């Protein structure tokens, strides 16, 4: 079995519109990715049970099993990363999808290059090019093993999505220091996301639910004024 870094990434495309589904598969294959496509929610559930995928491109309005329900069943899994593709174009759908565990949200219509950029970005977060040097960051009951990419709370492993982990690690690598929103967005998501404050808020919210004793009074990921976030208490 080859290491994940070496094998071709597998992408599951869940989209009920045949033309778009075939176009997306063509785009993925042209970029050297391995693409499987299904046209309804039931087939998607079966596909996710029978094989392992690195990325799922998930349409929300699906026959038989709703995309929202599939998103709910994938929450908390390390892989696959989920990119929601939706034609509804409502801002609150985006916020809801991110809150429910999607790693990214792509509004239809999109070009092949935008799609591939997003797929590469979630793959990059799931498989870092350079692993961290051995180091452990701690705050209260939360412990982050940066080399093993494992997060524990009270000694029990917390399951984080790749993006959640990358954001947390970015903060934890320099504990007590303020990370401003725009830098975090650029570092975790990429340069085109610097204005996507909604992403940052959604993921901080998700991390707080998993890590904080009291998410309303966070101590692990602390809001610092209007500028940014900090891991743990302020550094002196």
């Amino acid at each position, binding site marked *: 079995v080859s290491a994940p870094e070496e094998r071709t990434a597998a992408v599951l495309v869940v989209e009920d519109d045949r033309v778009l589904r075939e*176009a997306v598969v063509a785009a993925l294959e042209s970029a050297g990715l391995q693409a499987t496509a299904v046209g309804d929610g039931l087939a998607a559930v079966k596909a996710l049970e029978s094989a392992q995928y690195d990325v799922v491109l998930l349409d929300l309005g699906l026959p038989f099993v709703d995309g929202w329900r599939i998103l709910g069943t994938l929450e908390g899994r390390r892989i696959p990363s989920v990119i929601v593709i939706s034609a509804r174009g409502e801002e609150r759908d985006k916020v809801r999808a991110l809150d429910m565990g999607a790693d990214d949200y792509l509004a239809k*219509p999109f070009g092949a290059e935008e799609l591939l950029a997003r797929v590469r970005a979630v793959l990059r977060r799931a498989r870092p090019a350079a692993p961290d040097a051995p180091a452990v960051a701690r705050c209260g009951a939360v412990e982050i093993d940066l080399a093993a990419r494992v997060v524990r709370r009270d000694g029990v492993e917390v399951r984080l999505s790749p993006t959640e982990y990358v954001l947390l690690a970015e903060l934890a690598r320099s504990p007590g220091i303020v990370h401003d929103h*725009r830098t975090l967005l650029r570092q975790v998501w990429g340069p085109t996301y610097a*204005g996507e404050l909604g992403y940052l*808020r959604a993921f901080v919210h998700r991390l707080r639910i998993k890590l904080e004793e009291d998410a309303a009074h966070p101590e692990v990921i602390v*809001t610092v*004024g209007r500028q940014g976030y900090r891991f743990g208490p302020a550094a002196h």
Partner: protein
Amino acid sequence: MTPDSRRRRLWLLGVVLAVSAPVALTAVLVAAGGVQARDYVFLYLGVVAALGVTLGLTPALVAAGTGFLLVDYYFVQPLHTLTIASREDVVNLVVFFSAAGVIGGLGSRRRRAQLRAEALAGELGDANRELERLGREQAEAAAVAVRLARTEQQVRLLEESDRVRREFLATVSHELRTPLAGVLTATTVLAGRPELPAPVRDDAASIAGQARRLSRLVGDMLDMARIEGNTLDLRLEAVDLGDAAVAAADRLHSHSPQRTVDVDVPPDTLVVADWDRLGQILDNLLLNADRFAPVQSSITVRAGEGARGMVVIRVVDRGGGIPAELRDHVFEHFVRGGDGGGTGLGLAIVRGLVEAHGGRAWVDEPEEGVGATIAVSLPAAPADAEPPP
């Protein structure tokens, strides 16, 4: 007049009448002369009874006593003394006085009963009036309830029509975007295939360009429908205008990389806005400026304090400016300064969004007589506003 003083006056009148009525009767009888006293005793009983009925027990007893003395003095032997010679007269007078007392008592009891009845009738009247009032109030309450129910029904209908409209917009959006997505993704894949002849790839790229343009038009038309149907869903909070302007400048940079945008916003300039919609306002203003100004020129986003607690944001370009005949119409639908590839809705959406935030949009005088300056105002947020979570 207080009830107390009325009662006292009534009592005084009773005593005066109780004395004067028997005296008057006696005067009449004495003037008539030579009459047997016992023949007239019943007249005194009448007076006592009348006083008992009209004025109560005390005047009746006083009248009986007065009558007793007057009869004794004027009509009982020996006359003109208060002594009584015969035993028969003593009995007569005692019977008279007792009968007067009984009659007076009965009269006064009847009077009391009458007073009580009157009081009861009064209370009944009050109770009736109270009942009527309650009835009226109940009727009014019922009318209000009916009006309320009608209003609730109207609100439900409005909510229902609002929901239908939202669903319609979402469906239209979905139905238009899904085929567009197929076209755009497929043509961009084709345009990126190196093995295809160049003219085919060029055609695919221009189809993709048209699909993007259609997609923008769909998005803008849906936004316009939301603005005009008052179905915008704004999540208002204190937003750092500098952050929003820099983010918008970044987005313009990925759209036209050669363009420089100078952001001149004082630190901690906070406005009350929806982050995403503020981004859209700035994007549209920047895209508009980008479309009409020469590539080498820069665009400036400037912010400053306005009147009445507003922040004024100006987007300044150094292009050809807005033709005089268009100045009053730039915020209208499908008014375009040229074939710049826009949807013709960008500035109409800017105005709609700004007004939904409680602000205004207008065309400013060009700076140094060059280019165009479009200004919008948004409500300022207090400096100590709660930061986002």
